[in-house]
């Protein structure tokens, strides 16, 4: 159920916070990358905690943030860790090597951390499950965890490669992909994950507005780590714990790559084609999700 308080706390608050944070950090440092990273991390985390506060109150939400209960609580850690590789990459060749090693490690860590302890990867110390389970074999675990990691590494690479090309368009398209993902997740039956993607949408929309207003020459590539950790994390949760189809998750991941990543940057038609491909992908996934939703009613 989407409520007014949900829109205010999970949408308006992170959006306004992203605008304020990005503009403030930009004024203080004139560092576009730092401005983007700070705005994305601060706004997404505050939006997540604010959503929790709706149900249990502010104090309980703060207490909940400190003790991890559900897999989605690990998103905080993942989004914060996502900052470090891109920040380290600016320290010469050695920094870039370390950054890539960290990125690969994080891309492997994300699916494992979110799925560990679930029916797919049960803990050895867990209470024995006397009912049927869907625990993965070693080969299945390698297939899924490795596959997700490879897709994530690919997305991260094309985000970084897009650094100097059409930052404002990429920012706006990335926010639109997050919005389409939020709608798709909600139509697929998970309000919780739809709201989390809504927080990311507001965060990216706020950052895009502030970035355009401040004429920053960087886009979502500057905060590739936190954005990808949040986006991929919610998609992984929604596919494995809710009813998001793999096809929709794949289309959304592809749309994110087209929206924010490298896309024939040297060509004049790149901007138009990037926008068109992105819109077609989003249109397809939204239409399919709507058809499923309507059929289930």
């Amino acid at each position, binding site marked *: 159920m989407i409520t007014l308080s949900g829109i205010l706390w999970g949408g308006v608050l992170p959006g306004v916070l992203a605008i304020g944070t990005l503009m403030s950090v930009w004024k203080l440092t004139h560092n576009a990358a730092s401005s983007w990273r700070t705005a994305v991390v601060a706004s997404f985390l505050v939006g997540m905690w604010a959503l929790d506060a709706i*149900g249990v109150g502010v104090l309980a939400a703060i207490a909940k943030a400190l003790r991890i209960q*559900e897999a989605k609580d690990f998103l905080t850690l993942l989004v914060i860790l996502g900052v470090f590789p891109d920040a380290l990459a600016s320290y010469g060749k050695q920094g870039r090597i370390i950054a890539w090693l960290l990125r690969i490690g994080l891309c492997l860590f994300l699916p494992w951390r979110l799925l560990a302890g*679930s*029916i797919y990867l049960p803990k050895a110390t867990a209470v024995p499950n006397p009912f049927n389970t869907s625990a993965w074999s070693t080969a299945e675990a390698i297939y899924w965890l490795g596959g997700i990691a490879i897709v994530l590494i690919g997305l991260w690479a094309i985000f970084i490669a897009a650094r100097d090309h059409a930052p404002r368009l990429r920012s706006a398209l990335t926010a639109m992909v997050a919005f389409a993902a939020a709608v798709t997740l909600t139509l697929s*039956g998970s309000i919780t994950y739809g709201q989390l993607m809504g927080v990311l949408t507001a965060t990216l929309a706020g950052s895009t507005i502030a970035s355009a207003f401040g004429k920053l020459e960087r886009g979502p590539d500057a905060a590739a780590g936190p954005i990808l950790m949040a986006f991929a994390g919610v998609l992984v949760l929604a596919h*494995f714990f809710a*009813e998001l189809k793999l096809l929709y998750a794949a289309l959304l991941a592809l749309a994110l790559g087209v929206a924010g990543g490298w896309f024939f940057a040297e060509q004049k038609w790149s901007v138009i084609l990037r926008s068109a491909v992105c819109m077609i992908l989003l249109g397809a996934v939204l239409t399919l999700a709507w058809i499923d939703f309507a059929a289930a009613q």
Partner: protein
Amino acid sequence: MKALFLHSIVLVCLILASSPIAHAADNYKLDPAHTSVIFGVSHMGFSYTYGRFNEVAGNYILDQENPANSQFQLTINAGSIDTGNEKRDEHLRGPDFFNVKQFPLITFQSKQVSASKNEAGETVYEVTGDLTIHGVTRSVPISLRLLKTGEGMQGETRTGFLCEKHLMRTEYGMTNMVPAVGDEIAVTISFEGVKE
């Protein structure tokens, strides 16, 4: 004389073996066919929606002479939730409520047991134990009313219990859609165990 002695031994053994009365520290396995876990929750204050969990397993050790030695262990398949509406059940299994792919089991493990008699003269076991729902473990006291100890249809020894308990779902991290879907859940569990 020797034959009479042997017959007496056999007779005593048969009497003891066929006794319907449970003895100290008996092990019981839950009979799923005669175990029900049902619950009721308010829908926006208009009505109560009732549901059940269809898959339950467990066992218990019952020491009627020394109740402190008794133990109760119950495991419920959270994914077996059934409210008579498949679409709602799917939503209840999802991350907005039970998140059963992450938290497939609801478990109870007793830590402390005592017994007393109620006004009707029935034995009531006061059990305190760890109840885990949605990945959150809380120590909760429950009262298990011993309904009957006796012989089943196949001559097996059975005991049966009834338990009624009110839980607040937000205490277990299930905070979505409160208060539209009520916070307080009325749970009734009745189970039979077959002596092993």
